């Protein structure tokens, strides 16, 4: 019976190792940028806002699918901001603004639309760099 018990011990360990390997392998896929959003950004339909959330460019003919993805991402962003804000004893808006500063610093690609802190939609072009919100550290 002893060897059966050893197998009983080894099998879960092997299974655990397998699951760990699988878990380590999958995030790369799960963490990939949302292709629907990436396409909508490139099409100048969707852009980053100074409040830390995605927005839909006024007048853009976006599909229900894009709209739904924007909503889902914003809901999940808000959950992220809320959790981290509680950990740091700051407001959710402040946490969101801090993320917006990072996004506006380097993550708005050329040609993409973005909404500044006054609510105005702009476009990142070679001639015009992204205008960062005034609350961002210089």
């Amino acid at each position, binding site marked *: 019976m002893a060897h059966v018990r050893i197998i009983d011990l080894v099998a879960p360990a092997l299974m655990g190792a397998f699951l760990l390997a699988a878990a380590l392998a999958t995030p790369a896929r799960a963490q990939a*940028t949302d292709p629907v959003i990436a396409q909508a950004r490139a099409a100048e339909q969707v852009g980053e806002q100074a409040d830390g959330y995605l927005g839909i460019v006024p007048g853009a003919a976006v599909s229900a699918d894009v709209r739904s993805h924007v909503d889902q991402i914003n809901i999940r962003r808000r959950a992220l901001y809320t959790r981290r804000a509680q950990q740091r004893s700051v407001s959710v808006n402040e946490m969101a603004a801090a993320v917006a500063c990072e*996004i506006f610093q380097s993550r708005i690609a050329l040609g993409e639309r973005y909404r500044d802190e006054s609510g105005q939609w702009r476009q990142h072009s070679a001639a015009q760099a992204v205008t960062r919100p005034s609350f961002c550290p210089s």
Partner: protein
Amino acid sequence: MSVRAQVLAGLATAAVAGCVPVQIQAPDRPIEINLNVNIRQEVIVRLEHDAEDLLQQNRDLF
């Protein structure tokens, strides 16, 4: 109601009661209550590392 408003209200009541002939000057501006809704830059500076961390850890959302 702010402390200042409460004090003013209290003094006004006392004046109305007629015990002390005190002239109360009404504030010429509404009393401002700072709800702290503005983004504080020093907080943003402090959160810079957290913000970068959130972006790195949640690439599917950004």
